[in-house]
């Protein structure tokens, strides 16, 4: 038994082939029922290029292949007009949270993945831990942010910690803060807080982004606006850009977590 995939079989099953062609034209016609003029023109253009092109080029394939292809095209064309499932609207990958009051605070919890292969390799290779905090502009005390880990202040952000490209002075970018390895002895989680320096007079902006792989759950980022805590996961499907990295010599990154 053999299955003939090719061959110009018009003379053998002309009715099937004519049916396939009719179905293709019907599919094209259905696509032209478009909600806007632009969509009509665009669909007409591509239905012509692909639909009619397929008709012309597929002439050599077997009748049942043509019929199956045309039927699929028709079903998909109907579904496009009937099923109302809009294209997704992705959450913003870069947004900012202004801190303009000393009572305000950004908090983020990270559970270091002690058991992961990346962590163990980095730790065994004498990797150094760093906290990364993303903020807008060039921060220099006193107009800066203060980073605390598990209740202790570890650094004020300054220009020597700036990491990565910043095309303009006011661009956003990471600040890279070294932390002691001792911090991880017996500490199941890092509770990181970022506040405005008490001496600062200008508003500061901490960056936020999407969250997909949080180590401490999707609610691990929070913002205290002076009266209540707000989760960027709830409002934006996001988190603050506060991360932990384990790095080797020459800045080799073993892993990055948030």
């Amino acid at each position, binding site marked *: *038994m*053999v*299955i*003939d*995939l*090719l*061959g110009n079989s018009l003379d053998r099953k002309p009715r099937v082939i004519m049916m396939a062609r009719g179905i293709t034209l019907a599919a094209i016609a259905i696509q032209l029922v*478009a*909600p*806007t003029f*632009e*969509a009509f*023109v*665009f*669909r007409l*253009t*591509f239905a012509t*290029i*692909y639909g009619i*092109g397929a008709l*012309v*080029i597929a002439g*050599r394939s077997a009748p049942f292949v043509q019929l199956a292809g045309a039927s699929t095209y028709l079903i*998909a*064309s109907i*579904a*496009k007009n*009937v*099923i*109302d*499932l*809009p*294209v*997704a609207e*992705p959450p913003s*990958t870069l947004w900012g949270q202004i801190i303009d009051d000393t009572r305000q605070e950004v908090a983020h919890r990270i559970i270091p993945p002690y058991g992961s*292969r*990346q962590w163990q390799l980095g730790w065994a290779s004498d990797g150094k831990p760093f906290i990364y905090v*993303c903020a807008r502009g060039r921060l220099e005390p006193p107009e800066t942010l203060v980073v605390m880990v598990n209740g202790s202040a570890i650094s004020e952000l300054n220009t020597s910690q700036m*990491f*990565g*490209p910043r095309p303009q002075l006011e661009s956003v*970018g*990471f600040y890279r803060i070294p932390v002691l390895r001792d911090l991880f002895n017996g500490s199941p989680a890092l509770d990181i807080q970022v506040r405005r320096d008490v001496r600062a007079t200008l508003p500061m902006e901490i960056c936020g*982004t*999407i969250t*997909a*792989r949080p180590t401490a759950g999707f609610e691990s980022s929070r913002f205290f606006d002076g009266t209540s805590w707000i989760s960027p996961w709830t409002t934006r*499907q996001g988190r603050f*850009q506060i*991360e932990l*990295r384990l790095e080797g010599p020459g*800045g*080799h*990154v*073993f*892993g*990055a*977590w*948030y």
Partner: protein
Amino acid sequence: MRATGPSNPVGVFRVRKEFASVTLAIGISVFLICALPIADYLADWSALADIATGLAVSLSFLFIAISSAFSSLKTGQTVLPSITTHTYPETRRTRNVTPFTVLILMAVLGLCSLEWYLHRDDRNPFLASSRPEANEDTWLTADGYAMLLDGHIAQNDGTFLLPMLRMFTGDARPEPSEFDARAGHLYVVSFLVPWLGTYWAFAGTNLVFWWLAVVSVWWLGIRHWSEKSIGVIGAVLVATSQGFIFMGTAPQPHAVAYAVFGVLLVVHDLLLNRQLDTSASKAVRFGWATGASGLIYFVHVPSLIYLWLVMPLRTHWRAMVVGTFTTLSILAFWQVIGSYLGLSFSGGNSALATEAIANWMVVVRGGLQNIASWGHYSRPRGTLLGAFWYPWWILAAIGWWKSPRIARNWAMVVLIAAFAPALLFTTRFQLPRVAFFAYPGMLLLASVGIDEIANVGSRIVSSFVLGTAAVRRAAYIATVITILMALATVTNRDLITGSLRFAVNFHYALGTEW
């Protein structure tokens, strides 16, 4: 199980010419390096060997292409060993498929689906290789260059495709973007959005076209080589290939474009290479298919190079002109319509290609020093190795040596058609993903290499054990499976060990390291 074929007295690609091209390329590369003042990047042997290899390989392909074009101009079709002028060992084979073959192909499609599923979300290598631990773009966040699409994390360039997708679904008005020229991909994706949602519509489209690539390479394998197993081995290599795994669930047109290039090679064989008939209507059909494919992403460039190199120019130039004109007309037609409705067709790859050409002008004007430094800064070796790592090159070299001349010529044209634009683009970006368009030629040559090694293996086994056909067959199959599993282990290293090395190589191209 030897891959054999008809012998040809003269040819577009003769072994002598190929060896002459390679020898000349190596000579020029060595001369360039020896004649130049010592630069910092020539200080160590690793960098030196990198430049020499990059220059030699690039010049080899260039000289082979030039010699083929000259032969093509000079030689009449009656003596040309083109695919056009030679019948295949068993042409009916490509038409008739046994249920057993269908079963095997279904299993290979299942393998594709498994690879696709295992590399979804944050395990997509395109996305994963942009994370800081890949040690390339360390200034990005821990998720890399990412977006959230229907709750799935995905490569972020997809963001720029959504306005066009909304336009096709009728949810928004046209918005210009860098990706206006790739609208064909979104037209196709828009059919799956109502069924699957946006993330899975992109991923599902990639999977369907991955399947098509598998079937196309299988078909090309059994068409160009006499041994049936070449097609099946090639299909498995596509299912586990770096390029398709890398792009499998990315909301990008690359996987679709790779597959469409494979389909175009099939269409070319069916329309223009099956007989000597290269009538205008067939050329228009191929040109139409190429133009429609070019609206997905870049496919028209390797396809047109292929069209001009694979057939004898002297006798088929009219078909080539008609095919090219039709292709460009389709592309221009979309630009006119799109521009009328507010799209810009500016920026993106068109602008980068222009920059690459401008950089080439600088390189050429700069003389020998600049040409040699191109071998360092533009990383031609790294670009080709990023697309196909050493084992594939070694297997392909064995396959090239053992293939019949017609198949070897055909595969060489496919390699040139894909590598030429990738190498030309290196003055702006190093893009192994463009070089991966060579997969039909490269993976089928590698299949012949695997077949050859398995034949040797079966002969060795049969000389020690029983020399029965069943034992030889079992040894052959065991060797093939072992090699395929070893290669799949390389392309799945990200899943097995967590190492992103090969994904990074495919994303950014290798540096001077070996």
